[in-house]
C-alpha cells in the first residue's frame, strides 16, 4: 500500500535523536525517524519526535511503536532492530502502540501510515541508530560512574560490564545518568557480521495471545456501559434512507435505539444479536438515487471508451510507432483486472464514546491520525480532545488505509450518550467496500526478426486512488501507482511507451489493495512477456533471460526459481509451469508455479517456488510467511475474485459468492532466500501477491494452450470462450 509522500525509492535515512529524563525516572530517547510521519516538521526547525525508547529505573525497555500490526510480524521485526544494537534480549523489549495523540505527532507534519510494504524499510537504519545511541549513552554513564575509560566497558544482555574490575550495572541503574549524556553523533552501527538477532527467526511477539483467544482486535473491544449497533448504509452509493419500520425493530428483545444518517441507519442493542435482528425487522427502504443504473456493463463501457484516448505519458523511450510498424511479429492485447473487495476476516467496526468535551475511539486502523480527524470532523471536537486507541487488525490488505467507516460511525455515535460499538456485517463489509479499481489495459508489443522485443506500448485505464486520497501526491496529474510495475520492467526494451488514463468509476469508491500497482501491472507485463516468448518460439525462461537488462539480482532469482522448480523437466499430462519475474517494493522475486488442469478445465495448484532477494533480511521466517501468504492471497484473486455491479449495487455479499481459497486448494509453497545483504533493503508484504496471477496465467497456458488475459480465471475455464479476449495465439 502506498504512502503518498513516499513515492519512489526509500532512502537510507538517518535518525535524529534527543534524550531526556523519562517521567518517573529513567531514560527517554525520542527520535525523528525520517520517512515516518512527523519527520517533515524537522525541516521547519521543530523537533516532533515520532519514535520513543524508554528505559525505566527497573530496566524495563519500552518502544512506542508507530506501525500497525496486521499480521505481517512487524512488531517483532522492529523490536529486533532495537534489541540488536541495544544489546538486550528480544524478550526484554515491550512494544506499545502509539496513539494518535499530539504527544506523538504533529498533525501538520504528516501522517501515521502503515503501508507500502515500507515498515521494515523505513526502520532499518534509524531504529538501529536509536538502539545504538541508547547503548552508547549507557556505556558513557557507566564509565563516568566508575571513572574508567568508556572503551573498557561493554554492553551485554541489558547490563554494562567492566571486565577489568568485574563490576557490572544493569541498564535500569544507569538510565537516569544516561539521560544526561549527549546523543552521540555520528552513531556507529554494528558490523553485520556481529549480528546476533538480525537474520534469525525468533518466536513472534504477537502470536502467543493470538493462539489462546486473549488477543484483542477492534471487534473485541468491551467498554463499561457499551451498547452494540449494526450499521447498514444504502446499498447504492449516493442514495438515501427513505424509511424503516421503527415499531417492528423496537419490539425485538434487546433493541435500545435506532439512529440514522441521511444514507444509513444503525440499530443499537444490548448485544450484537439484538442489533442484527433489529435491523432485519427495521427493513430499511432506500431512495437509490442517481447511481441506480450503474452496472458492470456500464462501468466497462466507460473504461473501454476512455482507453481509446491517449493518456498521460509516464515513460517514453525510443520511437515506438516506427518500431511497431517495422516489427516482424506484433501482438495486440487487452488485459482486464476486475473490481475487488478486500474481505479481511475482521469486518469493519469502530467503538466510540463521544462526550460533550472529549471522545475515545477504539479501532484497528492503518491511519490513526486520519481516524482522529474523521471523529473531529463528525463531532466538532478539537483533535487533541480525541483519543484513538489503536488495536490489532484482523487483516488490513489496504482497507484500513481508509477511515471513512470511522467517520460514519462517529456521526452515528454522537447521537447517543453511551459508548457504542458499531459494526458492519460481512455482507456490509463486502458490499460497502472501497473497491480495488477495475483496470482495462491495452498493450501492444512487437518482435524483430531475431525474436527480440523491439517495441512496447502499454496504456492502462482505471481509477487513480491517489486523486481522492492524497491529491497532492499526484505528479502532473499522474498517479504513479497506476504505472508502478509497468514503466520499470526487468527487461531491456529499446522503444517503450507507458500511458495512464484516469477513469473514475461512477457509483463506487476505489482504494488500494494488497500489492497495489505491481499486482495490477505485473500481471499485464508478465502475461505479455509470456505471449511474446511463445510467439518468438522461445522457452519462457530463455526468453526472459535473453531480455533481462543489466540486473544480476534479477538473473539470480530467475535462475534459482528455475533450478528449484525443476524447470525443463518432463511434466505429467495436464501439468504446466508458469513464471513471473518482478522487481517490486525494491525486492526482486521470481515465482514458478506448477498447475494441473483437468479436461473439464478444473485447475489444481500443485506447487510454487519463489526465489527472493530483498536485500538485508531482518526476520527470514517472516519473509517466508509473507511470500506464502501473499501468493495465496493473489492466487485466490486470480482464480475466483470479482465484484460485479447491477442496479448500482455490488452483487457479491459473503464468502459463498466472493470465494476464498481454502486449505485443500492451497499449493505447496517453497521460498528460497537468495538475498544480497549489501543491497538496499526491500519490502516483502506484497511481493508474493504480485507474482500470483501472472504465474498462474502462464502456467495454465503451458498446461492447456489457453491464454488468459482477464481475472478471474475459473469462470473462463468452464465457460465458452470469449472470442475478443482469450486469444490463444498472438494477433
Amino acid at each position, binding site marked *: 500500500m502506498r504512502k503518498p509522500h513516499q513515492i519512489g525509492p526509500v532512502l537510507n535515512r538517518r535518525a535524529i535523536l534527543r534524550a531526556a529524563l523519562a517521567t518517573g525516572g529513567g531514560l527517554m530517547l525520542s527520535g525523528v525517524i525520517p520517512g515516518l510521519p512527523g519527520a517533515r516538521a524537522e525541516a521547519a526547525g521543530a523537533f516532533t519526535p515520532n519514535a520513543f525508547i524508554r528505559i525505566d529505573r527497573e530496566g524495563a525497555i519500552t518502544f512506542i511503536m508507530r506501525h500497525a500490526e496486521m499480521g505481517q510480524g512487524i512488531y517483532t521485526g522492529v523490536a529486533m532492530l532495537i534489541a540488536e544494537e541495544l544489546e538486550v534480549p528480544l524478550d526484554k523489549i515491550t512494544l506499545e502502540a502509539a496513539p494518535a495523540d499530539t504527544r506523538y505527532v504533529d498533525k501538520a507534519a504528516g501522517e501515521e501510515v502503515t503501508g507500502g510494504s515500507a515498515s521494515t524499510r523505513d526502520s532499518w537504519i534509524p531504529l538501529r541508530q536509536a538502539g545504538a545511541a541508547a547503548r552508547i549513552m549507557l556505556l558513557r554513564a557507566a564509565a563516568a560512574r566508575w571513572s574508567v575509560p568508556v572503551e573498557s566497558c561493554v554492553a551485554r544482555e541489558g547490563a554494562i560490564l567492566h571486565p577489568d574490575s568485574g563490576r557490572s550495572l544493569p541498564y535500569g541503574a544507569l538510565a537516569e545518568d544516561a539521560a544526561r549524556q549527549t546523543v552521540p553523533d555520528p552513531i556507529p552501527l554494528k558490523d553485520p557480521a556481529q549480528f546476533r538477532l538480525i537474520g534469525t527467526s525468533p518466536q513472534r511477539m504477537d502470536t502467543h495471545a*493470538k*493462539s489462546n483467544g486473549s*488477543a484483542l*482486535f477492534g471487534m473485541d473491544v468491551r467498554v463499561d456501559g457499551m451498547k452494540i449497533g449494526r450499521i447498514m448504509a444504502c446499498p447504492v452509493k449516493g442514495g438515501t434512507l427513505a424509511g424503516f419500520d421503527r415499531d417492528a425493530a423496537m419490539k425485538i*428483545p434487546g433493541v435500545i435505539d435506532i439512529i440514522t444518517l441521511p444514507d444509513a441507519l444503525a440499530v443499537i442493542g444490548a448485544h450484537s*444479536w439484538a442489533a442484527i435482528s433489529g435491523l432485519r425487522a427495521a427493513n430499511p427502504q432506500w431512495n437509490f438515487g442517481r447511481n441506480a443504473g450503474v452496472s458492470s456493463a456500464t462501468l466497462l463501457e466507460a473504461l473501454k471508451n476512455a482507453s481509446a484516448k491517449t493518456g498521460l505519458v509516464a515513460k517514453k523511450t525510443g520511437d515506438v510507432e516506427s518500431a511497431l510498424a517495422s516489427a516482424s511479429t506484433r501482438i495486440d492485447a487487452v488485459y482486464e483486472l476486475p473490481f475487488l473487495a478486500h474481505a479481511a476476516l475482521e469486518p469493519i467496526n469502530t467503538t466510540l464514546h463521544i462526550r460533550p468535551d472529549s471522545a475515545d475511539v477504539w479501532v484497528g486502523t492503518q491511519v490513526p491520525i486520519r481516524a482522529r480527524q474523521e471523529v473531529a470532523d463528525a463531532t466538532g471536537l478539537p483533535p487533541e480532545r480525541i483519543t484513538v486507541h489503536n488495536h490489532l487488525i484482523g487483516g488490513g490488505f489496504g482497507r484500513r488505509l481508509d477511515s471513512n467507516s470511522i467517520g460514519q460511525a462517529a456521526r452515528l455515535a454522537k447521537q447517543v450518550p453511551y459508548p457504542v460499538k458499531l459494526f458492519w456485517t460481512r455482507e456490509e463489509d463486502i458490499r460497502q467496500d472501497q473497491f480495488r479499481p477495475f483496470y482495462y489495459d491495452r498493450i501492444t508489443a512487437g518482435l524483430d526478426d531475431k525474436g527480440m522485443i523491439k517495441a512496447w506500448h502499454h496504456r492502462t485505464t482505471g481509477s487513480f486512488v491517489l486523486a481522492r486520497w492524497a491529491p497532492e501526491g499526484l505528479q502532473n496529474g499522474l498517479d504513479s501507482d497506476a504505472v508502478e510495475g509497468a514503466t520499470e520492467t526487468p527487461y531491456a526494451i529499446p522503444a517503450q511507451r507507458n500511458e495512464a488514463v484516469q477513469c473514475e468509476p461512477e457509483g463506487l469508491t476505489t482504494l488500494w489493495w494488497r500489492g497495489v500497482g505491481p499486482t495490477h501491472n505485473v500481471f499485464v507485463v508478465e502475461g505479455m512477456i509470456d505471449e511474446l516468448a511463445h510467439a518468438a518460439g522461445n522457452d519462457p525462461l530463455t526468453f526472459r533471460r535473453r531480455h533481462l537488462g543489466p540486473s544480476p539480482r534479477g538473473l539470480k532469482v530467475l535462475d534459482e526459481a528455475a533450478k528449484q522448480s525443476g524447470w525443463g523437466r518432463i511434466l505429467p499430462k495436464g501439468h504446466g509451469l508458469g513464471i513471473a519475474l518482478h522487481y517490486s517494493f525494491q525486492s526482486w522475486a521470481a515465482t514458478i508455479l506448477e498447475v494441473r488442469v483437468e479436461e473439464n478445465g478444473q485447475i489444481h495448484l500443485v506447487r510454487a517456488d519463489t526465489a527472493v532477494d530483498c536485500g538485508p533480511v531482518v526476520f527470514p521466517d517472516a519473509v517466508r510467511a509473507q511470500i506464502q501468504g501473499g501468493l495465496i492471497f493473489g492466487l485466490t484473486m486470480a482464480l475466483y475474485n470479482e465484484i460485479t455491479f447491477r442496479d448500482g449495487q455490488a452483487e457479491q455479499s459473503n464468502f*459463498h459468492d466472493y470465494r*476464498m481459497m481454502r486449505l485443500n486448494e492451497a499449493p*505447496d509453497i517453497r521460498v528460497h532466500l537468495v538475498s544480497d545483504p549489501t543491497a538496499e533493503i526491500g519490502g516483502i508484504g506484497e511481493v508474493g501477491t504480485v507474482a500470483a496471477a501472472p504465474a498462474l496465467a502462464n502456467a495454465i497456458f503451458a498446461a492447456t494452450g489457453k491464454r488468459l488475459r482477464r481475472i478471474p480465471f475459473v469462470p473462463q475455464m468452464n465457460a465458452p470462450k470469449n472470442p475478443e479476449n482469450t486469444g490463444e495465439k498472438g494477433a
Partner: protein
Amino acid sequence: MRTILINGESHDVDVPDDMPLLWVLRDILGLTGTKYGCGIAQCGACTVHVAGQPARACQLPVSLVGDRPVTTIEAIGQTALGQRVQEAWLEEQVIQCGYCQSGQIMAATALLQTTPAPSDDDIDDAMSGNICRCGTYVRIRAAIHKAASNA
C-alpha cells in the same frame, strides 16, 4: 433464563432463544476469542466444541445447545491435546493477523481428537471449512502434523 455450560462453568443467561451461541459467548460472557467472520457458517472463525464436536457458533441457536458442554479457545489449552496444538501453532509460526486462528486451532484439535495421526487428505477434509485470509494454510498443515507427531 437458561443455564449453559461453558469451559466447565455454568452460566445463567437471559437471552432470546434464537440468539446464536457466538453472540452469547462474545457479548454476554465476554469470551471474545471466538470470532465473527461471516455469520453464515462459511468461514469457521467461530468454531467451538459442543460435546467435543466442532460446531459453528454463529449458526447454533443457544436454545439448541442444551446441557451439552461447550469448549472455546480460551479453555482449549487446558487439555493436553489443545495445548499441544497451540504449541505446534507457535513452533511453526503459523499465525499472521490471527483473527481466524481461534477457529483453526479449534478445528485442528477436533480433528486430532478423532484422528490422532491424520493424513493430508484427513487435514483437507477437516480444515477446508476454515478460511484464512492471510493464507497460512501451508503452515496450518505442517502444525497439525507436528502436533500429531508430538503426541
